[in-house]
């Protein structure tokens, strides 16, 4: 065991014991919590603890994944399980404070349940709820539990053990072999085997080589990359350093979209603390391995998530894809060999090294080893971020975990059923109800005409019109086309026009023939996945919901009444200052 790391671990254990001897109040402050007022609640709790002079600490954690129950506040007394209050409002604060000041267990507020120990007072155990029971939490193991701003919290739960083990006891090749044994595949969309990708970089000449971490996460409906960074940034930081060690890379960037302040600030703080602990920087933990990591921000651009566009953006240019070859492993960012991985992919690495590749490959199904981190949204009872082992059916995920279509909304009783699923982001597919039978793994998903992609699953119930949803997806793709190649730029524009006329009742039967012609030209003539896959939403929707299209075209009506006349979407035209040298002025 590395001596320097042993000292860090002792410090972490000490901090953990001190924390456990006091009352801890954790407030979920991911963006899901923030948007329903968690920040105000945390501030008030802190004020009250101070003014009542209570021996308790209140601190922010990230997202535990149960977004539907946010704001979530949990109390943990020494030696007891955590007791979670759900949908907390400012009205509940008095009660929470009273539970501590009077040391009672007398709840009236809405309690979700207990976590991490035997049930008390007959409260439900979160471990027994389907939202938790069906999960296998690896990359999200600390999310919502650890303080994301405290490196010692991460170390006290086994953090940086993988990195320490790798650099003290393994060769880079052994690390790559361990990852190969794990069967880990990329979680950014293409599901490419990670160990093979790392192998490409090994063979490229140094000394400067880069590990690029992709947290562009432009896919609407997905927030698991940002979720990991805002809840447990160190799992990614450690994973990136392990990737650096395994490939001989000495530098890295975490690429995040500007404006997502939670993930950005917590990743920056995490990197700073890792430097201070000598877990990043020169001669990590006294070894001869050095690795630099920093955050690179990008403006709003979906295509900047594409690997070559990402490199352009890190260099500070327009995020427009490059043609390949040369491939990133040969000529990447700043002309140096580079490896690009998604946040989730790298976040598995610490546990894979700590527990072994075989442990990881024992989880999952067939060639899809490990877990999928899903974001379930839309018309479901329990939207949230859930990590499940591959091999369960999509139906189980939708019905059991996210509770299926909601039965009640705003007090009214509804009788709705799940109609469609949108998976894999806007370049993914729109699937029908029959796809609920599909197994959750890369191959079965592809056979069903969809990709798992970033893990976002948007569920639509029977009030949703497939044409209306597809119009939105294609409008997104049109807006986000980088414009470099005309089949994508003009094709998307043409397709939005066609979809807008179909949804407004002006479509013609000819449109059934026209759309695939345009889609085919895009697939054939586009440089990057954006144009190549851009027809997916339409082709899959035609496959599963041809009837919705037919009703619009032949009967001039929308079957669900969702296709409203004015569909608001942005244009790329931006107000320009009237200065002599601006184009267009």
């Amino acid at each position, binding site marked *: 065991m590395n001596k320097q790391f042993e000292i860090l671990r002792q410090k972490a254990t000490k901090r953990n014991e001190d924390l456990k001897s006091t009352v801890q109040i954790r407030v979920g402050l991911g963006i899901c919590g923030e948007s329903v007022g968690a920040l105000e609640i945390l501030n008030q709790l802190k004020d009250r603890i101070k003014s009542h002079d209570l021996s308790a600490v209140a601190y922010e954690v990230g997202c535990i994944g149960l977004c539907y129950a946010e704001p979530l506040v949990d109390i943990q007394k020494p030696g007891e399980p955590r007791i979670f209050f759900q949908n907390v409002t400012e009205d509940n604060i008095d009660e929470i404070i009273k539970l501590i000041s009077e040391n009672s267990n007398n709840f009236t507020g809405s309690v979700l349940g207990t976590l991490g120990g035997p049930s008390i007072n007959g409260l439900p155990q979160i471990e027994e709820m389907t939202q938790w029971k069906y999960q296998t939490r690896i990359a999200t193991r600390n999310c919502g539990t650890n303080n994301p701003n405290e490196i010692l919290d991460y170390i006290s739960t086994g953090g940086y053990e993988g990195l320490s083990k790798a650099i003290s006891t393994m060769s880079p090749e052994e690390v790559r072999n361990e990852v190969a044994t794990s069967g880990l595949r990329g979680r950014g969309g293409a599901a490419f085997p990670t160990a093979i990708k790392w192998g490409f970089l090994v063979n490229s000449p140094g000394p400067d080589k880069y590990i690029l971490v992709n947290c562009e996460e432009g896919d609407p409906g997905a927030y698991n990359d940002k979720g990991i960074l805002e809840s447990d940034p160190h799992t990614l930081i450690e994973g990136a350093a392990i990737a650096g060690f395994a490939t001989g890379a000495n530098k890295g960037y975490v690429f995040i979209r500007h404006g997502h302040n939670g993930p950005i600030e917590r990743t920056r703080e995490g990197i700073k603390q890792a430097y201070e602990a000598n877990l990043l920087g020169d001669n990590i933990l006294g070894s001869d391995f050095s690795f630099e990591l920093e955050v690179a921000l990008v403006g709003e651009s979906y295509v900047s998530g594409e690997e070559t566009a990402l490199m352009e953006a890190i260099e500070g240019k327009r995020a427009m894809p490059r043609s390949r070859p040369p491939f990133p492993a040969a000529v990447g960012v700043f002309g140096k060999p580079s490896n690009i991985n998604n946040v989730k992919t790298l976040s598995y690495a610490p546990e894979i090294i700590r527990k072994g590749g075989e442990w990881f490959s024992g989880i999952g199904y067939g060639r899809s080893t490990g877990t999928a981190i899903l974001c379930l949204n*839309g018309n479901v009872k329990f939207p949230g971020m859930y990590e499940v082992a591959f091999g369960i059916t999509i139906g189980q995920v939708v019905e059991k975990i996210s509770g299926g279509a909601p039965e009640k909304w705003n007090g009214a009783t509804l009788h709705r059923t799940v109609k469609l699923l949108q998976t894999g982001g806007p370049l993914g597919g729109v699937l029908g109800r029959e796809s609920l039978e599909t197994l959750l793994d890369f191959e079965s998903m592809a056979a069903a005409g969809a990709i798992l992609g970033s893990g976002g699953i948007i569920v639509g119930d029977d009030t949703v019109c497939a044409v209306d949803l597809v119009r939105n997806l294609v409008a997104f793709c049109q807006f986000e086309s980088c414009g470099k190649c005309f089949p994508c730029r003009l094709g998307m524009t043409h397709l939005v026009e066609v979809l807008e006329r179909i949804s407004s009742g002006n479509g013609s039967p000819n449109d059934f023939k026209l759309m695939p012609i345009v889609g085919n030209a895009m697939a054939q003539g586009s440089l990057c996945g954006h144009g190549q896959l851009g027809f997916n939403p339409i082709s899959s929707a035609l496959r599963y919901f041809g009837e919705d299209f037919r009703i619009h075209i032949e009967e001039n009506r929308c079957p669900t009444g969702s296709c409203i006349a004015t569909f608001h979407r942005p244009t790329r035209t931006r107000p320009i200052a009237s200065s002599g040298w601006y184009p267009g002025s």
Partner: protein
Amino acid sequence: MAEDIKSQIQRAINSQPQKTVTMLSCLLAVHDECGFIPTEAIEIIASKNDTSINDVWAVASFYTNFRFTPPAKNIIEICWGPTCHLMGAQQILSAVQDNLSLESEGDTEDGFVSLKYNTCIGACSQAPVITINHHPVHSISTDKILEKINKELKRKND
């Protein structure tokens, strides 16, 4: 005044927390500081990065978060991404635009609100979502969100 904005731009460019400084990182820093990209910034960033104003303008005009005129006092972003779309974003867009007498993205005539569409705020589990002055807010219903917007804007500007 002209001097003022130049030093503001310089400060933004020189106080970036990360090591790698590029045209894009400078533009983002200036935008955070000023709320828009002033003409002067394009020139300063060009000379800082040893490139031409055309190159800087090319980058600035590509990313849709940049604007080139001063923003209104308050910024409201409404997500029109697919999850929010299913959960009623179009109705919110219509209602907010009617309320502000706007037809699309843009600034109100009184310079009080800048309205911007967002492709995904990242809080899809709380859809539909908007942001008011960069704070994400879950929208329970169209009426409530109008109320909330008015309340927030009033609070800030009192």
